[in-house]
């Protein structure tokens, strides 16, 4: 740090030197001025003339030179002109000397170890992969990050990591954009003024000295969930140093129900690890365990493994979901029952009662029938069943779930318990409440906020901003010192004294525990882009060793925690693997100390009342990703909305409230839909939101997604959507019940950017679905008569593919619509973000989209969820990823006038951007509408950070050209080069497309269709395999495997809507 300061001073001195060169002045005085020339010039001029000095008037070339040199930006003006060798050497010597001085602080000597291949020196143009991890809530996702010449460009999952298994989710994929976000906080500030890190350390030391004297009283730390052992150790050491200091935690989008439920059931905080793979029957009680929460990537993988069908004799697991609002888990379910959130608890109680655990609850008759069937199914699969409770459900539901799992004998088979993964599990709401109370009581002198944004996320009745803000009326602050560490200068940073820009996880050393306790070392891929610091370093500034680097602290801790004979070897292996082997928490034996009958009577809400639910947004989560353009533009899995959140309402409730949608003419179903604006008044607060009608949502439920309406998120995220936190109170953190009069139509309409409004397949065989029974009876049910016309029908001669014939198979039975592939593709292929206005015009650029359809029988008259129909109450939902189908008989190729889209020898439809003139004829003729056109210059060519982000192997497209999925042709060619070097064929699985790599359920398989032993050829040989719009004879290389559901015969009518039954 001293080095850096010195550097700054040097620059300063250097600058002064340049400006006040006494020698230069002397020289100027030496040269005599030609007064005669001045007089001559004056006489020769007419009219008003101004001159700065007589020298200028004289046209003195020396003056001209002085003018030029007077305002140079230090030395660089020397470079403008040709520099002779002597000057060049002088300058080089000077800059090298300064570089040496400035260099010591900036480039720490720390070693990172590549994951797969040990480079014998960098090969330019060849990416390297490093293992690291992204901490996220009570989980860390193990990653392999692709690095091109030292800049990370793409994130992949780490196959050796338990929570990734090689796959990722949208947040991990998009987190690389956060690294290069130009709006990130770039330095240390105090009251908004830029400060140096050393000044911060000085004042931190001063605070520490003060605290030391007071034994730490008044020192408070506020964090989110911490799973990093090193960070936790750092906090602990501070707490030891300041015995009266306190550590508070606030994670806005993770409920306390999970923790408190375990405490209720077992008497202590515990971590539950599920093994969906071991379960034949799964019941989710409002849990989106396939789409969010710790371990969801792994759970999705395990769950889908039990649904992979090789043939009609295979078996499948069965998933029941009870939930108030559709989630990707609900959409994947074999049976889904929409219930209000409060009814989920009643359902759980009734289930416990049904299983003989005591207690009794009356349910409505149809729910009761459903429950009976589920209970019987669960009981039939004792030890091979699983009940999962949702993160947002209260402690009672979690406790009941533990009891049910216990009685079903699932503990030890389909789930196990471990010690908490969180370093310091507490009730977050109480923790934050305590902090607020202490601030009000004047007990807090220094508040250190690490990586959370409580001003934005705290329950609005806490009014957190007023707790730390300078109060102009009393002219004082309740907290003397407030220090905020966050990646952006956000709402909290604005009202804090100090703000330290937080380094991205790809910029710092660190560690984190995964959902099962496995410890991962977070390895940086790049030195901090800006003057940012890790939360640990900020904490370190208050200790006696403020200068300790993250690297040293981490290694010290690991050395102590994992003693080994050869630490360096252990270290290198850990970095290489991305995980510390055998560090997963061991299963522990627990005894249930909970009797469902002992629960107090459940609170019931009247059906006339509206239940307002607060849920993290599937794209921006709790708001932390609000400034991430990829996530903002990502269509949300169920609603397909982008750039906004909306108050989600069921069709029936919408009808009662007279809310409707109105498809706009511009963009229409593929872009712009007007929705009614409503005022929601809750807990003495009000928010204005756009209402969005969601088929399948429980009646009487309004979901207010969190994470939008940010006031200080950055260019991308500020003022998008509405802020649901504004009506979220501490008494109703997840569900608030209020009269329906609390919703008022304002009479205004708000345009929402929805990429797929039309949910009906119009009776076409777009997304083939069937039941397991149907599949067994007729394995080829997905094939329509006349579906595949004879090849000879084409006018043009067949291509032959003697070598490779690339193909893709997408198993719709596995896809749960999680969107990871969409963001992975965007990241891999430098796909532009176009913004809400362009999305509303139907011009989003995603090369792969996920279509969401409701079962065929859903009414097709208006295709408008805002005109109520009973089939919209709980429509079976399916997802279909649609990338370019790479047709062999491609309609696009035939109509391109300039041959810009051409067939490759291996069957790809190659796009030649250089040749494209942009007639858009190919897109018109594409039956799948997967082509994307650069209507304007969508790419950002100016922002330097974004240049670092781009994949150098993929062209950055300009305006006026068409683009589309290439099957990641750059990856194909990389594999080809490797194979040709070894003089062999490309092996199956050697090429993994970006979408395939990201997919948690392995729904996407790519390979050589010419090789009958390849995975893709085997999938294509299955009878479930069908071609989208096969009757057009385009003969796509991408084919689909029909989705098969495994309904309980007892409940068959519930799954199939009545219309279909009668038909």
């Amino acid at each position, binding site marked *: 740090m001293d080095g850096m300061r010195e550097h700054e001073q040097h620059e300063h001195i250097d600058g002064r030197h340049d400006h006040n060169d006494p020698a230069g002045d002397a020289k100027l005085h030496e040269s005599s001025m030609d007064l005669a020339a001045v007089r001559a010039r004056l006489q020769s001029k007419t009219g008003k003339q101004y001159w700065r000095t007589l020298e200028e008037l004289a046209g003195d070339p020396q003056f001209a030179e002085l003018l030029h040199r007077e305002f140079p930006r230090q030395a660089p003006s020397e470079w403008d002109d040709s520099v002779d060798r002597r000057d060049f050497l002088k300058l080089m010597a000077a800059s090298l000397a300064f570089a040496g001085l400035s260099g010591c602080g900036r480039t720490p000597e720390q070693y990172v170890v590549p994951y797969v291949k040990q480079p014998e020196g960098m090969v330019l143009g060849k990416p390297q992969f490093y293992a690291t991890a992204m901490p996220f809530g009570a989980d860390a996702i193990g990653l392999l990050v692709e690095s091109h010449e030292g800049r990370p460009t793409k994130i992949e999952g780490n196959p050796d990591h338990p929570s990734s298994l090689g796959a990722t989710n949208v947040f991990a994929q998009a987190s690389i954009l956060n690294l290069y976000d130009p709006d990130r906080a770039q330095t240390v500030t105090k009251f908004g003024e830029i400060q140096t890190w050393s000044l911060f350390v000085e004042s931190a030391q001063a605070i520490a000295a003060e605290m030391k004297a007071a034994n730490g009283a008044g020192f408070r730390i506020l964090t989110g969930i911490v799973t990093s052992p090193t960070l936790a150790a750092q906090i602990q050491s501070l707490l030891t140093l300041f015995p009266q200091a306190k550590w508070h935690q606030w994670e806005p989008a993770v409920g306390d129900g999970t923790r408190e439920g375990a405490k209720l059931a077992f008497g202590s905080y515990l971590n539950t690890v599920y093994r969906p793979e071991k379960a034949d029957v799964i019941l989710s009680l409002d849990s989106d365990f396939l789409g969010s929460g710790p371990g969801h990537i792994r759970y999705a993988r395990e769950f889908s493994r039990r649904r992979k069908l090789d043939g009609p004799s295979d078996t499948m697991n069965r998933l029941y979901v009870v939930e108030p609002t559709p989630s990707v888990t609900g959409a994947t379910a074999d049976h889904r029952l929409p219930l209000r959130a409060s009814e989920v608890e009643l359902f759980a109680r009734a289930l416990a009662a049904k299983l003989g655990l005591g207690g009794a609850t009356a349910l409505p008759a149809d729910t009761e029938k459903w429950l009976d069937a589920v209970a019987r199914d669960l009981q039939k699969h004792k030890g091979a069943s699983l009940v999962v409770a949702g993160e947002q459900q209260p402690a009672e539901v979690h406790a009941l779930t533990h009891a049910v799992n216990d009685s079903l004998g699932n503990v030890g088979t389909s789930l196990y318990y471990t010690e908490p993964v969180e370093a310091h599990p507490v009730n977050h709401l109480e923790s934050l409440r305590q902090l607020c109370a202490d601030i009000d009581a004047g007990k807090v002198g220094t508040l250190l906020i690490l990586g959370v944004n409580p001003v934005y996320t705290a329950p609005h009745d806490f009014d957190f901003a007023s707790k730390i803000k300078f109060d102009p009326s009393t002219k004082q602050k309740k907290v003397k010192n407030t220090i905020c560490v966050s990646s952006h200068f956000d709402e909290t940073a604005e009202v804090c004294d100090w703000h330290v820009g937080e380094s991205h996880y790809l910029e710092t050393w660190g560690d984190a525990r995964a959902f099962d306790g496995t410890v991962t070392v977070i390895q940086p891929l790049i030195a901090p882009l800006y003057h940012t610091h890790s939360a640990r370093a900020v904490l370190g500034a208050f200790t006696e060793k403020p200068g300790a680097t993250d690297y040293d602290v981490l290694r010290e801790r690991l050395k102590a925690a994992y003693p080994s004979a050869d630490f360096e070897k252990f270290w290198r292996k850990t970095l290489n693997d991305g995980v510390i082997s055998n560090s997963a928490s061991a299963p522990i034996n627990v005894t249930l100390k909970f009797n469902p009958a002992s629960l107090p009577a459940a609170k019931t809400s009247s059906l006339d009342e509206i239940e307002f639910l607060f849920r993290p947004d599937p794209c921006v989560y709790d708001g932390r990703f609000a400034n991430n353009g990829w996530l903002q533009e990502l269509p949300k899995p169920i609603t397909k909305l982008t750039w906004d959140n909306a108050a989600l309402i069921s069709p029936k409730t919408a009808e009662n409230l007279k809310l409707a949608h109105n498809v706009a003419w511009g963009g229409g179903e593929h872009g712009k839909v007007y929705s009614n604006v409503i005022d929601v008044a809750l807990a003495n607060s009000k928010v204005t939101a756009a209402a969005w009608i969601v088929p399948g949502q429980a009646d009487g439920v309004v979901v207010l997604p969190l994470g939008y309406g940010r006031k200080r998120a950055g260019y991308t995220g500020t003022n998008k959507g509405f802020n649901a936190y504004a009506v979220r109170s501490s008494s109703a953190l997840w569900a608030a019940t209020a009269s329906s009069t609390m919703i008022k139509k304002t009479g205004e309409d708000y345009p929402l950017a929805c990429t797929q409004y039309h949910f009906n*397949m119009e009776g076409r065989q777009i997304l083939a679905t069937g039941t397991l029974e149907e599949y067994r009876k007729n394995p080829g049910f997905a094939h329509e008569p006349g579906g595949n016309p004879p090849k000879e029908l084409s006018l043009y001669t067949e291509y032959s593919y003697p070598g490779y014939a690339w193909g893709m198979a997408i198993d719709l039975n596995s896809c749960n619509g999680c969107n990871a592939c969409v963001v992975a593709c965007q990241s891999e292929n430098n796909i532009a973000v176009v913004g809400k206005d362009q999305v509303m015009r139907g011009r989003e650029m995603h090369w792969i989209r996920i279509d969401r359809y409701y079962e065929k029988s859903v009414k097709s008259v208006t295709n408008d969820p805002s005109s109520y129909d009973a089939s919209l109450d709980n429509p079976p939902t399916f997802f279909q990823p649609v990338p370019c189908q790479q047709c062999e008989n491609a309609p696009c190729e035939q109509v391109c006038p300039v041959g810009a889209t051409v067939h490759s020898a291996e069957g790809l439809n190659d796009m030649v951007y250089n040749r494209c003139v942009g007639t858009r004829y190919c897109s018109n003729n594409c039956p799948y509408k997967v082509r994307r056109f650069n209507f304007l210059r969508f790419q950002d060519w100016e922002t330097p950070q974004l240049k670092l982000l781009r994949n150098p192997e993929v062209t950055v497209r300009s305006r006026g050209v068409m683009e589309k999925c290439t099957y990641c042709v750059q990856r194909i060619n990389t594999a080809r080069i490797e194979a040709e070097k070894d003089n062999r064929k490309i092996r199956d699985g050697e090429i993994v497309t970006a979408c395939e790599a990201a997919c948690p359920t392995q729904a996407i398989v790519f390979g050589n269709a010419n090789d009958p032993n390849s995975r893709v050829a085997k999938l294509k040989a299955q009878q479930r395999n069908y071609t989208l719009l096969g009757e057009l004879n385009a003969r796509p290389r991408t084919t689909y495997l029909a989705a098969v559901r495994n309904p309980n015969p007892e409940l068959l009518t519930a799954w199939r809507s009545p219309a279909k039954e009668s038909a």
Partner: protein
Amino acid sequence: MSAGQPPFDSPEIRRLTPVLGPGHTYASVTDKISAIVLTRPTSLGWFIGFAIAFGLTGLMTVAIGWLFIKGTGIWGINIPIGWGFAIVNFVWWIGIGHAGTLISAILFLLNQKWRTSINRFAEAMTLFAVACAGIFPLIHTGRPWMAFYMFPYPSTMGIWPQFRSPLIWDVFAVSTYGTVSLMFWFVGLIPDLATLRDRAIQKPTKIIYGMLAMGWRGSARHWQRYQSAYLLLAGLATPLVLSVHSVISFDFSVSIVPGWHTTIFPPYFVAGAIYSGFAMVITIAIPLRKAYGLEDYITMRHLDNMAKVMLATGLIVAYGYFFEFFLSLYSGNKFDVFLVQQRLHGPYAPFYYSLILCNILTPQLLWFYKIRHNVVVLFIMSIVVNIGMWLERFVIVVISLTRDFVPSAWGRYSPTFWDWATYIGTIGMFVTLIFLFVRVLPAISIAEMRELVAETSEKKE
């Protein structure tokens, strides 16, 4: 035919409505027509009309300039509707551009004397319409500065256009048609240019017309060469009238989009083109004869005949609509059946019904003699048909694209300000060119009118 109305066509009608007003001599014809260009003072009306039209041309220039700066994203097009106003307008203008050559070439070959007084400005109209049309394929591309890729030039990379694409056929069809139309028009102008040269008073006018007249002296040899050249060009232009719009219809029928992929398109497009072309000739002829007092030259007979051609081609178009409809349903192809439903009940149904009203129902009034001979009604009707034909292209190009195969990708289209600005701008350019044309060139062929005088007087004798 109702009683009291003259029969549809008879010597009686021909007598009542001659192709040339009575009492004209060589000199009177020449005086009258050349005076418009040479001696009559330019009226205030001309200046006002020209100013408005030129203003609109300016709007077009701005719209295209902005387009080149920003990209095609300033228009309403999107995915799935990759073609919007630009292509609608292109097909519409090309359709309008059919009447001129049809009148000049085919009616010339068929020896229809009544074509004489309207062929000149009909041909001019054709050229201007083709010019307007030609703008669109260029500017609608994403990278217009690369549009030359569509021409088969000897590229050093050895790359040729992709000849399977109908857009390449378009390039050839339209450029050939434009070239032949220009030649045909210019050759027809030569004797008149010589007349103007001879009658011009001012020196510069004399020189300009003299250069354009290419040394025409009216010798028998000139006339002999001239007439064989004209005949040859007429023969050359005739198949083009049929081919251009057939080829343009291939842009649609060769694709697989439901609503585009129809074998009936070539004849149906040609009929539609002639239909709209004649409508536009009427739209121009009626104000022109009024403004310059040319009622003797463009007589009711002309208007009546053009109305009849409109009626006939309108019926062919109606037949096309019917069979497009019928075949969609008869094929049983679910996408085609759906398309029919969409046209009748979809979000754009009002456009389809307006189209039926404009193109099929309204023109049925032309069965009536009184309607055909009511200049005001005829003028309005020609405008209605022009609107109808524009709607037809909108229905085909845009609405077919809104809902094709995969429902998830369905969308909608609405034009932006710049779409309208470009469209109205080309109308402005068209009118500007028409204004300039009537001001500097004889709007009616003097030479052919003199011939007509000779013929009519011969008959009388």
